[in-house]
């Protein structure tokens, strides 16, 4: 789950990190009113993606009218594929220095990693690539947590003595937030030192672990919506992972690895997969729901069903598909290949109820599905 700036900053504040005063607005009128209250402000596009400044999505305004006209320009922009519908009107900050501070889940060390740079701002990634010393990193033990010593060490020798204690405090607070929110990524860029030596978070990027949503119920409603098609939304509501891909060969397979592989093999034999849809794991009894969602995609010209049962029983999945097929009576050809747990029963079922002979080899099933789809696309 990604959280936009306007949703993430109040969470930072809760953990004791200072953020500028701000108001969320959805129109030029609201922005003007907010600026009247706040004074000189920044007008910031709210989209769950980076590089907003470079895309022209962040503008400074010294008067309410200026804030209103910036808002009018920014609302309706598209940044990183996201339409801008909301803006944050935020009090301007007196910036002396810009820093970068983040905590991420690090897969290599299998623990949290704190990242700090004294070169915060728009080009921190580029700066870190040119000068690896620009980004300091410290692995943290999840059981002992971030300590003041580690934090102090990260900011040593960077002419930050005047704000050292406050910075260490901010780092420890950020770590509390990272743990408390089950964050995968919690990033402040820039973390600002003001002219009067205060530490303020000027932006915040937060990604919360989807697997932890059951214990983060308080914040999940504020997460940014995922960029999903109508069918993807429908599938998600049914607890199915469905991704639309634009090709013509529909795919139903079990397990993420086998589903990705099926897509790859379709492409290898000259076809284009229409979707990713896996019915393995806990979803293996939902084959019927899965098929009906998939058939709503008008681009599908043939369907490939590839089951290889390990945990999932192919006979249960096949029965779900066959039931749905007989009920929905789709006007496209379907090709089966079935192996593993329950294969004899599954193959017998498909033969008996649909009169279709499953392919012994996956490659043959894929070739047939690709040929059928291409023929119908070209017809």
């Amino acid at each position, binding site marked *: 789950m990604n959280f936009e700036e306007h949703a993430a900053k109040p969470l930072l504040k809760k953990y004791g990190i200072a953020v500028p005063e701000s108001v969320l607005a959805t129109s030029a009128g609201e922005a003007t009113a907010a600026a009247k209250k706040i004074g000189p402000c920044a007008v910031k596009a709210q989209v769950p993606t980076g590089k907003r400044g470079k895309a022209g999505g962040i503008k400074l305004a010294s008067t309410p009218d200026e804030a209103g006209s910036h808002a009018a320009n920014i609302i309706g922009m598209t940044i990183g594929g996201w339409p801008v519908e909301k803006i944050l009107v935020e009090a301007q900050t007196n910036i002396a220095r810009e820093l970068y501070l983040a905590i991420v889940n690090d897969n290599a060390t299998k623990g949290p990693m704190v990242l700090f740079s004294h070169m915060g701002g728009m080009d921190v990634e580029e700066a870190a690539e040119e000068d690896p010393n620009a980004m300091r990193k410290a692995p943290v033990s999840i059981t002992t947590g971030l300590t003041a010593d580690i934090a102090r060490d990260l900011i040593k020798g960077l002419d930050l003595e005047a704000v050292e204690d406050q910075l260490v405090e901010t780092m420890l607070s950020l770590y509390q937030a990272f743990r408390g929110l089950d964050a995968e990524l919690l990033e402040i860029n820039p973390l600002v030192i003001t002219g009067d030596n205060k530490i303020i978070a000027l932006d915040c990027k937060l990604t919360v672990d989807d*697997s932890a949503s059951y214990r983060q119920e308080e914040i999940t409603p504020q997460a940014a919506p995922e960029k999903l098609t109508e069918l993807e939304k429908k599938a998600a509501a049914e607890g199915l992972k469905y991704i639309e891909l634009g090709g013509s060969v529909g795919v139903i397979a079990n397990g993420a690895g086998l589903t990705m592989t099926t897509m790859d093999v379709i492409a290898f034999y000259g076809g284009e997969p229409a979707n990713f849809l896996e019915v393995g794991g806990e979803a293996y009894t939902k084959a019927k729901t899965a098929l009906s969602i998939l058939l709503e995609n008008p681009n599908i010209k043939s369907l490939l069903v590839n089951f*290889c049962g390990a*945990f999932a029983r192919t006979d249960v999945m096949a029965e779900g598909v066959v039931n749905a097929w007989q009920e929905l009576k789709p006007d496209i050809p379907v090709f089966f290949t079935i192996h593993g747990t329950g294969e004899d029963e599954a193959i017998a079922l498909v033969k008996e109820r649909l009169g279709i002979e499953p392919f012994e080899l996956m490659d043959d099933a894929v070739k047939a599905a690709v040929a059928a789809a291409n023929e119908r696309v070209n017809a």
Partner: protein
Amino acid sequence: MIPRKHHKILVQGITGKQGTFWSEAMQAYGSTIIGGVNPRKAGQQHLGVPIFATAKDAAKEQPFDISVMFIPPAMAKDAAIDACEAGAKMLVCLTEHIPAHDVMEMHVAAAANNTQIVGPNTAGLVTPGECFVGIMPAFNDRVFKPGRIGVISRSGSLGTLISLMLTQQGLGQSAFYGVGGDPMIGTTSVDALKILNDDPGTDGVVLCGEIGGNAEEDAAEFAKTMKKPVVSFIAGRQSPPDKKMGHAGAIVSGGKGDYPSKRAALEAAGVAVADTPSALPGLLKERLASNAA
């Protein structure tokens, strides 16, 4: 380690529906299950073995080598730490969707107690003809046959298909090592590769990878040092970036962990990479023949 018939296995969550189904299947295949864990049923018997309140209690009465967890995500961390502290040499963690911070705590406990975690989100391990631990169709002899090929897979379903293709071509397996689809797994592909390289019963290895992370790149570095042939298939060539394709680990972000870089790393290390899984047995046979010559 590679699970053997003589290894004593504890099943955490043995009394649940899946725990019962797969424990029976493991017993029938030859795995030595010595007990189970369910705090509410301690003192009872299930599938002919005693139930304990915790893995630590079990260790006092019935020492074990391997623990396998049929435990839902919210309870997985405590169960895993219990097994590590009870002295499990290996912990097979089948659970998917364990919060990442919990997984980190599990890895700390594993390191402190010298426990080898397999997973999370693994389908388990099969030693054909001997035993299996997890949720793999070991008992299907069209899929698994005893032999001399090691199979490493992030995915259970794809690993099953590839084992079946090997068996169809007369290549039985010495071990199937499901390493798991999560981003933060205990035993990585390169760890599994080292285990199979040291195994005198293994002549060659199929590495079945996925996009995302750097498991395949690390494995490539080690494969350079191996005399045994390694062939590979990497799933996800057609998967769009920035989308989680079911497995949390299988995501390409900012160009890192993408298909071309993995394939290039493996090929530079002398690993033959197949375009489709069905090409793997043939590639492996060629490599085995030229190794023998």
